[in-house]
């Protein structure tokens, strides 16, 4: 009863206490156990890491503007792409949506006052900070050049760079992922509002639940593997060193057992965001809710069985390769289920092209390209041809940047009014979304062609005939950089000058929109009672416009 009234209640224009103005000062932030504030702490931290990783990317693209290796030498170049990869993967993409939007939204979407373990949540941020500082210290005092994959024996006996501190940083960072995943799983199981059954959960929650399972099961394996690399390097023993009886391919198996599912850690939360955006901005319940929900779990499960496709040329038995190839094709099925269902949701919907929707539509197109080229790479014969070329680089950037990052930006825009209580400038945001989309394609589509023509990755010099495509890619990267700077600037601007947001500016149906923007510290004045499915847009249509 009371909740029904609250839906239409306008946001308190000012004067009310919310989680942002309940208290001030650095201590109130550094010692907070409020999931919303911790989400913002993460947001600030990973934005810094993203800027740093982006800086390395900029230097890489500048070097590749000309065929000669003139801007940086090969050793420096090795460090640049290694640190770009390590920072972007472990310190930006993996925490991106779960630690920011996930922390902020999971309790609100299920009608809870906080996550199950708020102190553990804060601890996870501090662990993340310690891991980041370790890695940054290593980056700024010499760097590391092993590639983000830390392949042995180069990482244990070959490299003369700071492998151990970086590995320690990633190891520590892993525990922050584990704590976040643990918190989400327990919260989703035990703290749902009355009436919020599993099949009424928002699809974003399903996506984060699947992601959390990967956090829990995958992260410890890379933790122990990197610990052994550190032990091997520090004590000169040979767990993975063939000269001492060890097996370097075993390292690759253990590494990819986590690091392939890690790709799904990056993409699943984005898929969850896109499910929310597509339904809201086409004013329709999702087509095949159950299929989208369960396909998240299917991706998490199958994602653990495909790691061998990174190692087709590393020396694996042909039978193992066949099975890994087959399973890699199989994991495309639940991904395709999502893409088809999103598309079917759009059909006959009342679509409005707000900025988050532009990101969501961009996601569908780019993820489809990234996913389909993944099938090329999962084919045994073709993989031998394009392995370790720019084709692979283009493929995974379509997934990680075109997919994960587009979803992240779309989500940040969509929930920005809820997080800050302010609207972002809509027309500027639409332009930025288009700039990101165009810049991204100009950067990475030429790399598919470069890779297919045979340009290998990880070199700072290349033959002259590849220059045109590389110049296109670098030009695209510059546009992409502007596309990222724009939201950074206008979102900060909106904090002070943006129009005040109502409780539910999009007319969306989630529980998080039933509470004021920004929400009070306890999220809901009265615990909401859920009486129907998550997306009941057709009924609400009349209320809107």
């Amino acid at each position, binding site marked *: 009863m009371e909740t029904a009234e609250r839906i239409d209640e306008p946001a308190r224009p000012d004067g009310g206490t919310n989680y942002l103005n309940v208290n001030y000062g650095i201590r109130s932030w550094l010692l907070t156990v409020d999931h919303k504030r911790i989400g913002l702490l993460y947001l600030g931290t990973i934005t810094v890491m993203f800027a740093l990783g982006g800086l390395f990317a900029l230097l890489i693209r500048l070097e590749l503007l000309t065929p000669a290796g003139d801007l940086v030498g090969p050793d420096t170049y090795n460090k640049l792409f290694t640190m770009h990869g390590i920072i972007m993967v472990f310190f930006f993409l993996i925490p991106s949506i779960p630690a920011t939007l996930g922390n902020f939204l999971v309790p609100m979407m299920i009608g*809870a*006052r906080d996550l199950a373990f708020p102190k553990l949540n804060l601890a996870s941020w501090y662990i993340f900070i310690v891991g980041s500082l370790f890695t940054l210290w290593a980056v700024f005092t010499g760097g590391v050049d092993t590639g983000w994959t830390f392949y042995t024996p180069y990482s244990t006996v070959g490299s003369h760079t700071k492998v151990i501190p970086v590995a320690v940083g990633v190891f520590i960072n892993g525990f922050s992922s584990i704590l976040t995943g643990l918190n989400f799983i327990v919260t989703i199981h035990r703290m749902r509002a009355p009436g919020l059954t599993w099949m009424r959960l928002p699809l974003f929650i399903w996506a984060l639940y699947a992601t959390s399972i990967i956090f829990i099961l995958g992260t410890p394996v890379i933790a122990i593997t990197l610990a052994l690399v550190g032990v091997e390097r520090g004590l000169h023993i040979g767990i993975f060193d063939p000269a001492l009886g060890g097996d370097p391919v075993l390292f690759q198996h253990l590494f990819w057992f986590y690091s392939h599912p890690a790709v799904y850690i990056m993409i699943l939360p984005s898929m969850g965001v896109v499910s929310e955006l597509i339904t809201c901005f086409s004013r329709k319940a999702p087509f095949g809710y159950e299929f989208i929900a369960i396909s998240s779990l299917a991706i998490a499960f199958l994602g653990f069985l495909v790691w061998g496709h990174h190692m087709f040329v590393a020396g694996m038995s042909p039978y193992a390769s066949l099975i890994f190839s087959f399973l890699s094709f199989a994991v495309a099925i639940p991904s395709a289920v999502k893409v088809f269902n999103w598309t079917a949701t759009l059909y006959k919907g009342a679509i409005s092209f707000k900025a988050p929707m532009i990101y969501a539509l961009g996601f569908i197109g780019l993820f489809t390209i990234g996913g389909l080229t993944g099938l090329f790479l999962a084919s045994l014969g073709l993989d031998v041809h394009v392995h370790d070329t720019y084709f692979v680089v283009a493929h995974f950037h379509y997934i990680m940047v075109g997919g994960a990052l587009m979803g992240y930006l779309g989500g940040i825009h969509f929930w920005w009014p809820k997080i800050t209580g302010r609207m972002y400038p809509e027309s500027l945001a639409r332009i930025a979304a288009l700039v990101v989309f165009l810049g991204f394609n100009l950067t990475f589509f030429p790399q598919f062609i470069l890779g297919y023509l045979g340009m290998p990755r990880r070199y700072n010099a290349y033959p002259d005939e590849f220059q045109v495509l590389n110049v296109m890619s670098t030009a695209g990267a510059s546009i992409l950089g502007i596309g990222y700077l724009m939201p950074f600037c206008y979102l900060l601007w909106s904090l002070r000058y943006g129009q005040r947001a109502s409780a539910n500016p999009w007319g969306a149906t989630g529980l998080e929109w039933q509470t004021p923007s920004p929400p009070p510290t306890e999220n809901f004045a009265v615990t909401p009672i859920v009486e129907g499915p998550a997306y009941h847009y057709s009924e609400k249509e009349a209320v809107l416009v």
Partner: protein
Amino acid sequence: MSERATATARRGSLPPATAHQFDDAIQQHEASGLGMWVFLLTEILFFGGLFTIYTVYRSLYPEAFGHASSTLDIQLGTINTAVLIGSSLTMALAVHTAQVSRNGRLVALFLFATIALGTVFLGIKAIEYAQKFHEHHVPGPYFHYEGADPQQSQLFFCLYFCMTGLHALHMVIGVCVLAVLGVMALRGRFGPDYYTPVELTGLYWHFVDIVWIFLFPLLYLVERHT
């Protein structure tokens, strides 16, 4: 506003053991229990990486692993296994006592008994490590092994030290947590209405115990049948 005030008042009237995000003590207890089980799942995968490596190398080098295994002190290993199973018994008694009685001193007694047995285990482990150190069986530049295939044997000892070392680290953490719980028990903090920390630490302790139940045969009993 008034709704909110009553909600706050309602929460304020809950027993102090219930944190603000939970509706009641039952929900809190269930959430904490699930959290510990999920954590143990992570732990299984953490040790699982090492068990995988062990499986691969033992199947590659079965003879070297057999010989190297027979250099371990089976008597100390067996005693330690008994000591650890004994500590799981005292741990289980501590949990049971906390669940059914208000006798904080008895809970503390069982907890400190668990600590004592855990410390005995770690002491015996230290003696074994010292023996290996004197025999130059510690992997690294000073490694020396008389038998065949010293390289493959060194892999065994790498795994022996990594696996038992990681296990011992978990024991040390467990002993520290138990010490805190022991003091809390003496102050009468646990009873039938609130025993979650004792129960969860019990789960952790039994998990560490079970890891050893796998480590003991894999490391000490490889070729004892001959």
